């Protein structure tokens, strides 16, 4: 029940965020520039935080260097090279599978 209520609260909050501008704003340029800039930085910082937290830490301790880091490097390299989420996913997944099979 606790987990359900957490997702319920997140769902309600997210919906209120989603509907806020649609219901209230007829001119989006009324958003203050500072708020606009901050909102545009949410995605890269949020995703970056999750990547760093899951890649380098495991239950608040440093994760031992291995397949996770090497496969992530492959995914980052391909993402920068091809500028494609799909190719990055495929390359990272294949690299990770090979590294796991190799015993890393």
């Amino acid at each position, binding site marked *: 029940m606790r987990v359900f209520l957490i997702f319920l609260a997140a769902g309600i909050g997210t919906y209120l965020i989603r509907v806020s501008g*649609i*219901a*209230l704003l007829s001119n989006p340029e009324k958003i203050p520039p*500072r708020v606009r800039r901050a*909102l545009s930085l949410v995605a*890269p910082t949020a*995703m970056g935080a999750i990547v760093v937290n899951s890649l380098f830490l495991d239950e608040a301790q440093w994760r031992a260097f291995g397949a996770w880091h090497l496969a992530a490097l492959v995914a980052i390299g391909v993402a920068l090279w091809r*500028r494609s989420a799909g190719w990055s996913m495929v390359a990272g997944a294949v690299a990770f599978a090979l590294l*796991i099979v190799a015993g890393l």
Partner: protein
Amino acid sequence: MSVLWSLRSVRKVPSTIAAAPSSGVGSWDPRARLVPMTQPGPPSPESVSAAGRGAVLGIGRQQWADAWAGLKAIAPLMPGSVAFGLAFGALVPALGINSWTGLFASVSVVAGASQISIVESLRANAPAAIAVLTALIINARFALYSAALGPVFSAFPLRWKLGLAHLMTDQAAVVALQHVDTYPDPVRRRWFIVGGALPFVAVWVVGTVAGIVAGPVIPDSWQIGFIVPLMFIAVMVPGLKRPEDMVGLAVTAAVVLAAKGLPFGLNVIVGIVSGIVAGTLFAEWADASRARRGMHQQTVAEAAEHEAEGGL
């Protein structure tokens, strides 16, 4: 899912678009589309006559055609939605979360990054308030889309506004904004938007179900948890272009690692806020420099466009 489309059209969002009569399912009136518009591109006579020839399931043929066009516009992005749904779904049984609760999460939140952040918070035994707050901070980006979509939806009936708002994923919002000029008629526009947004959410939910079902049979040795950083690397890195993103990301990474001793996974939320503050201050400094050189400031549409390049 990287969305690298231009949103230049949204900067021409009609502020004086004529309000067409409300016409939901079963009550559509073809004349609604003939209300004079201030924007180019009204429906052709052929499309009007086609709409009047009959309805399927109480929905006019023109509406089906517009919804189909919306579906085709978003279809290339659907595999990513399925894959991300799979990733989230696979984490649900791994953490002992009830399958129905996992399904409810994908239906009610409809935002993969925040859903996974909740899972990570649960793994860290974080209090419920912190789990929810972290998710809402991650989803604050939807405020930007919502602001850009306000004028696009302004002529829609209230029930359509309220319903479509729930379906506005990063990808659906971008597709909607991209086709503003193609569909100046509010009736046709809303059918185009729902035709893309609803199936996109549907495949996300289907992916979640598949992940929930497949999760328990995946061996631990596969280390399915790697899907979390991999998915976010794939989504985030191709969209990293602005210097302020790099600054925000660097500060976020440093703070997340430096604050790893904080309880309940609070290092993530502290890292995000620190990165946003640092990136914003850097952007203001850079904007001031550009202004001195006579260059333009970023509009909301440009900010939404950039946001969509790394959204989920």
